């Protein structure tokens, strides 16, 4: 019948197009993995928390894990494209085989994709678990976050009656945000810390993070909330504990 079936299995790899595909696969996997992971990771900027560092790392790992699949598809497609092309108004001759399936190839493909899926799932579950635990940290400070149409404000409930419109956080201290909204749904997103939780009217939601780098970061609303959604942005100031204490006392709070 077909060459595939009549030839010995080892000789498959001696075929020109198979070898070409193999070579292309390796090259393309390297290119895709490198370009896709570097471009994406660089766009994400420097992390300001371990949560964000984990996210960036996952992007890199998942991209590299997906690269061989993308590379294989690209290599096979490219080999076919480079080999026999036919232009014209009538079709080329039919191919000289009538292979309709390959149980071995299908089985391998499905098992490998299932394993990849399992890999992504376990990696994600572990990261999710680690991040969820932050909500239970008894040493964490709590900040109440209130979103309302096109403004945020923050209540530092551990420090008395201090309130602010920009967010101030001490570095390296775990913080739990209790987030709610006065009107429609907003989404509380501190970009460089990689955390996001919706602010819902009538309900309180929580998220947690430990900022680990002093600096000024961006808080942006990530859920369309009406007319001036684009402007519902604030700055997040991560400062040293001493500076934070000084800021709190300056605002009339107790440390």
């Amino acid at each position, binding site marked *: 019948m077909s060459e595939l079936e009549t030839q010995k299995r080892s000789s498959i790899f001696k075929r020109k197009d198979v070898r070409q595909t193999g070579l292309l696969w390796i090259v393309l996997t390297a290119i895709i993995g490198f370009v896709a992971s570097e471009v994406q990771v660089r766009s994400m900027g420097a992390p300001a928390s371990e949560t964000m560092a984990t996210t960036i790392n996952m992007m890199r790992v998942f991209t590299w894990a997906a690269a061989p699949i993308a590379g294989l598809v690209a290599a096979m497609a490219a080999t076919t494209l480079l080999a026999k092309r036919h232009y014209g108004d009538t079709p080329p001759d039919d191919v000289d085989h009538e292979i309709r399936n390959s149980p071995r190839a299908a089985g391998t493909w499905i098992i490998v994709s299932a394993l990849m899926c399992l890999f992504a799932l376990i990696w994600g579950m572990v990261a999710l678990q680690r991040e969820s635990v932050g909500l239970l940290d008894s040493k964490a400070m709590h900040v109440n976050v209130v979103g309302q*149409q096109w403004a945020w404000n923050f209540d530092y409930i551990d420090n008395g009656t201090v309130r602010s419109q*920009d967010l101030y956080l001490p570095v390296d201290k775990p913080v739990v945000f209790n987030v709610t909204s006065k009107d429609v749904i907003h989404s509380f997103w501190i970009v460089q810390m990689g955390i996001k939780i919706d602010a819902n009217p009538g309900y309180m939601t929580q998220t947690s993070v430990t900022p680990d780098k002093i600096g000024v970061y961006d808080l942006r609303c990530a859920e369309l909330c009406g007319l001036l959604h684009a402007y519902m942005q604030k700055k997040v100031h991560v400062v040293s504990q001493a500076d934070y204490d000084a800021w709190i006392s300056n605002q009339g709070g107790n440390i």
Partner: protein
Amino acid sequence: MNKRLFGVLGTVILGAALITGIGTYVSSAKNDSRVLAATPAGTIDTPQGELPHYTLDMSSYPDSMAGSHGADGGAHPDWVTFGPVTNFEVPAHSAITITVRQYDGGETITNDFFATVHGTVDGTMTLNGEKVRSIPANQIGHTWTLHGLSDTKDQLFVSVPLKAVPDEEMPEEGYSSNPPTTTFTFITGDAGEYIWNCEFPCGDGTVARFGSAMSTMGYMSGHFTVVNA
């Protein structure tokens, strides 16, 4: 061949022209095109030293018969509005004093953060000649809240509550003759685009009344541009 090429180009040009036309129409459909520039008022002493001083006057009304919507109140005569315009232009690195006369009534604000003055020089405003840091949350008509995008520059944030005309002083017809008058001063930084809006829910909608006048530029919100002098 040439004829076909012209046909294709013709379609592309016609299509692009149609889109340009629609775009021009939509982009020019603005109900608040007028901009008010701040009036120079000499210099003023501030905690940051002596700075050029500018003033702006505005009012908030319970309907659109005043403001910039024309004598008939425009498309929505019963919507609350600021006036005389809602777009302002002020110089950078200057002290800006804004005076707001508030002709509308009010009730309790949903978020009392906005019952307090934020971002003005020394954290106060002058209400009917009296310096205050906040007003009771149940006496608020509107707020005037200025903010912008989070970028690399320092951002202006100014928010002042505007006292409501008490219910018993609201006239049946026309506007109150004795509107609460609020004056506040803040200092601008670098040039940039900002917006201001009211944070008191005074529009339509089920949970929070931020619809209608609150969700349309030119009523309870507008642009605020800081330009290099």
